[in-house]
């Protein structure tokens, strides 16, 4: 233990010995707080779902990214399919 640590521990050990002030509740405090709590908007069934909303959004976002990533090659091949079909039409026209 260095010098400072010794001094600090000595100081806080002494501070811990200080008697705690009695925790007297101010007059009417509980009644006032209870009345204010009663004035708060009542919890609705939807409120309990609110905390899932953000997680749901994250999961939905992750699913979207995964879906795009897995189908990216499919999207590209679809585009090449379009060109293929356009060529087919061209071929059909040239035949007629």
């Amino acid at each position: 233990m260095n010098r400072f640590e010794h001094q600090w521990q000595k100081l806080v050990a002494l501070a811990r010995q200080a008697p705690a002030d009695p925790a007297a509740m101010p007059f009417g405090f509980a009644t006032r707080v209870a009345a204010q709590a009663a004035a708060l908007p009542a919890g609705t069934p939807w409120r309990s779902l609110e905390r899932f909303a953000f997680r749901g959004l994250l999961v939905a976002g992750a699913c979207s990214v995964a879906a795009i990533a897995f189908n990216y090659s499919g999207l590209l091949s679809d585009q090449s399919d379009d060109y293929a079909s356009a060529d087919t039409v061209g071929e059909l026209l040239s035949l007629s």
Partner: protein
Amino acid sequence: MADESFDLVGCLERVRRRDQVAARQLVEHLYPLVSRIVRSHLPRRVAEEDLAQDIFLKMFTRLEQYQGNVPFPHWVSRIAVTTCIDQLRAQKRRPEFRWADLSENEAEVLDNVMTDERDVLPGDALAARELVQKLLAQLKPDDRLVIQLLDLEQKTIAEISALTGWNQTLVKVRAFRARRKLQKLFQELQSKEKS
């Protein structure tokens, strides 16, 4: 807690049904716990009663979120600690610490602690507590909270982590940083005292 026979589960059930008498009983039951936390972490210029009231109103607002995974007083303690830390963070400027700001008793206690000349007397405890609070007021709010819980309330790193929601490594880092700052303060005070 004031009354060990208090039916907390039943009371919570009635509070959820908007029973105002039960809400009042719950406040009365938890007041000593909340008051102790508020007094330990009370920021400057914030009335103890106002802060306690904020904590209880947050508790009632979030009551639907309490799922019983931890004892209810622990859950309320966490609300109290986070509310105090929010208040401390809101106070951007910390007062400069000067030797002249210390009372005669505080200066004497600090002198005794620093010089190790004589053992401190039990009567010096109140002055020591005031002095520690003045020193802690110089720290960043998060660091102050860690030192308060660690050194004054003698909580373990795991308990502080559970109370604050910070991981244990972060708690250790904050304790280290706070002690370094306190050491610097001690050195500054020593040099001022000599000069």
